[in-house]
């Protein structure tokens, strides 16, 4: 049977243009009708280091970057020596034979070498070192029997009209690679269902978050650069004028969230983004948003901790930082989107929830989800906008009850500029009108009532938010539990297990807070065997589940080495557990 899926790894150093080559290949595949999933493993260094990107493409929905690659494109000797020997039998290695030495003794049996004489192939087009990537791309598309037109179209769209010389040079070297491959090597037996009319966008999670925000009417975005949230800032800044979004890079994350609160208070849908260390700086103001009942959306994309930790590596280690953010008890909603597509919809949903409940909504992503690329099929900009309760003048100027005690805790808000509805929003606790009860007007009874009012929002929100559903057969041998970015690898695991005769289902916790304790308890107490899969040291979700349901998940697969889960790893552990 011909292969319908291929895994390509590109390995080199920072500065070698790996990400853009990976992206080009992903787009070529997408324009050929394939689904794609790509992950880039890099370090906190601008030049050098060991970077590798893995793209997986095929004609069915792809849930991860895959395990062992079918092809390696090695961009330097170090990487050839690092990745080459591990390449599985039946795979192939493309490399610049001018600079890199590989021979059959260095690789496993049946690993095919594809040496590319880069200098000869690219001499006509100038001496740009990243040309080697494009040559290899050309050669690879030939070996995969892809339509070269797609390569041409991607190169054109990448470099745009203004750079005709660059476009031509790139097409030239790609063609040279393609032709060289065609005259030297056989194509492999790879024939997915190509479809040159369907092209799915290839998005990262951060790009989906940005688009989701724009769709939801986000009018303000603020950030201080921080991996892996920075690309939201980049998208927003680039589309500020086009989408009518005020985008402000601030001096630190403290000002970022406070500014976002100011924008939210003034009536704009407002969002900000950061990672763990920046979120730590924001925590004080999270409580401010809650007590002033100001809607804001905060994206925090996790990376390897503690502290600066592994700034370019993935981790799901900030769950309790987010849950515990800021002093005191206050209402907030925390959502962990699970896929790139979900990043889009969860972001749009976050804006609605923030305004409907007038509170901070925190979206938790992680480096893997924020930065990996995926083809997405289903993006609809018509996301529905619900701004919640906005007051209308009550003719009672100066006596507006901004914090009126209501059944569900939500009170109509007025926006600066509205006639007759002036009020002061205060971080000190206050009564219905906003007058402080922390000072001379101290009042224990009012304090209890206003706390209860704010916290009631959580009960009502919990009722509104859909409880988690078990994916897969209810009576499966094993229940996989996860949150955030592990969704995909767990989906894939369940499929692989099924092929191995083990039934699995999957509980994905999307609403981290408020927590659907009853639904989760019900699902888990009916589970035969449970495996919790998390990208952190301590099993933070498992702790939360125990806190909220009392259920202790004994079996966990925890990963905190900075790399995402690979399907094989999860499958292996799940098989163990299922058979235990």
């Amino acid at each position: 049977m011909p292969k319908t899926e291929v895994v390509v790894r590109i390995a080199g150093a920072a500065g070698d243009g790996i990400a853009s080559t990976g992206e080009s290949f992903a787009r070529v595949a997408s324009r050929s009708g394939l689904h794609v999933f790509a992950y880039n493993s890099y370090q906190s260094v601008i030049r050098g280091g060991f970077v590798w990107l893995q793209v997986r493409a095929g004609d069915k929905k792809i849930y991860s970057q895959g395990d062992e690659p079918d092809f390696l494109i090695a961009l330097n000797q170090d990487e050839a020596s690092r990745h080459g020997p591990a390449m599985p039998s039946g795979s192939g290695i493309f490399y610049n034979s001018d600079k890199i030495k590989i021979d059959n003794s260095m690789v496993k049996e049946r690993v095919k070498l594809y040496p590319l004489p880069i200098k000869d192939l690219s001499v006509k087009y100038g001496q740009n070192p990243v040309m080697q990537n494009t040559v290899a791309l050309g050669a690879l598309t030939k070996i995969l029997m892809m339509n070269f037109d797609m390569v041409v179209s991607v190169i054109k769209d990448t470099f745009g009209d203004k750079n005709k010389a660059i476009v031509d040079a790139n097409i030239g070297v790609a063609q040279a690679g393609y032709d060289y491959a065609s005259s030297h090597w056989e194509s492999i037996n790879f024939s997915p269902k190509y479809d040159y009319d369907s092209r799915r966008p290839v998005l990262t999670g951060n790009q989906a978050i940005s688009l989701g925000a724009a769709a939801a009417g986000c009018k303000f975005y603020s950030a201080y650069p921080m991996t892996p949230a920075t690309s939201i800032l980049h998208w927003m800044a680039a589309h500020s004028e086009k989408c009518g979004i005020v985008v402000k890079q601030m001096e630190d994350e403290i000002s970022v969230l406070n500014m976002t609160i100011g924008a939210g208070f003034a009536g704009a849908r407002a969002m900000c983004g950061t990672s763990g260390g920046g979120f730590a700086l924001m925590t004080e103001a999270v409580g401010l948003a809650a007590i002033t009942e100001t809607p804001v959306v905060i994206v925090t994309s996790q990376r390897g901790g503690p502290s600066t930790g592994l700034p370019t590596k993935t981790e799901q280690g900030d769950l309790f930082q987010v849950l515990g953010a800021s002093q005191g008890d206050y209402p907030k909603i925390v959502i962990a989107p699970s896929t790139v597509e979900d990043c889009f919809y969860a972001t749009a949903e976050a804006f609605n929830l923030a305004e409907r409940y007038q509170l901070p909504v925190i979206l938790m992503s992680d480096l893997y989800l924020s930065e990996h690329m995926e083809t997405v099929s289903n993006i609809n900009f018509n996301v529905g906008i619900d701004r919640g309760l906005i007051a209308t003048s009550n003719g009672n100027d100066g006596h507006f009850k901004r914090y009126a005690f209501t059944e569900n805790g939500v009170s109509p808000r007025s926006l600066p500029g509205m006639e007759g509805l002036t009020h002061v929003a205060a971080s000190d606790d206050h009564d219905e009108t906003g007058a402080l009860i922390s000072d001379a007007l101290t009042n224990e009874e009012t304090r209890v009532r206003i706390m209860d009012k704010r916290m009631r929002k959580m009960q009502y929100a919990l009722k509104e938010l859909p409880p988690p559903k078990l994916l897969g057969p209810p009576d499966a041998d094993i229940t996989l539990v996860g949150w955030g970015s592990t969704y995909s690898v767990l989906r894939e695991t369940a499929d692989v297990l099924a092929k191995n005769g083990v039934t699995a289902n999957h509980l994905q916790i999307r609403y981290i807070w408020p927590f659907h304790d009853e639904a989760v308890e019900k699902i888990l107490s009916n589970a035969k065997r449970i495996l919790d899969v998390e990208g952190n040291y301590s099993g933070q979700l498992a702790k939360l589940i125990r806190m909220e349901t009392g259920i202790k998940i004994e079996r966990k697969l925890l990963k905190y080495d900075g790399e995402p889960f690979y399907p094989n790893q999860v499958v292996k552990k799940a098989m163990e557990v299922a058979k235990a």
Partner: protein
Amino acid sequence: MRDVSMYKVETKATWCPGCGDFAVLRGIQMALAALEINPNDVLVVSGIGCSSNLPGFLKSYGFHGIHGRAIPVATGAKLVNPDLNVIVAGGDGDGYGIGLNHWVHAMRRNFDITYIVMNNQIYGLTTGQASPTTEKGQRSKSTPAGVIELPINPISMALVTGSTFVARAFSGDADHLAKMVELGIKHKGFSLVDVLSPCVTYNKHNTYQWFRERIYRLEDNGHNTKNLDDAIKKSYEWDAKIPIGVFYETDRTTYEDEEPGLKRGPVVSQPLGISQELGKELLEEFE
């Protein structure tokens, strides 16, 4: 000229009798009345401190945020609704201590807001510790042997950092204070009004009396408010003579006027969401 009572509320100011901040409250109310700005169109933002309680004592929209972070909140509001008159009011600890970074960056950005600092050279609400403007040698609860660092000079910092309007006022000279606030609000761009506003409870050194002996008005002195070098020189005066008035004023495009996201007007008035066509265009970038 509107009636000052338009800007009053029932809630009584909780400051100690004699606190300099009363004059600042009145000064803001007078300035708004003089400029005929509707209370609905004013947003007064503060942090935490005795002085930062001010928004609660004034009829307008108010945001009484957390300690040191008034400026980011204010500029966030201003950026999405540049039609608002945004005033930031707070203390020396709030603004020149914990919040100094935001102040400095707001000045170089030249947001069109007015920043009024009730500078009492002490931490009032926390009962009397040294602040960034407490003079060298002064004893306080946190410096019982005397402060051993130079104070912040807000005027010279503002001057070198790009504030486009820099003035000082004194709570003991209420009409002049109101005038400074009025000029500050009228100024298009970042305006700083540093108000010497005595804390009668915890600062026993920089009293009304102490100031009265030293204070003079720059305008009585032929000071040229367009000359930065002169302004910087004047900013060093303190011990023997203390100038109040406008040190410096200049024109520079405001941040809001250059912000690309505001090209179509205040974003709070724009329709929400993305049309299907624009959405398609945005997605195409990724195909």
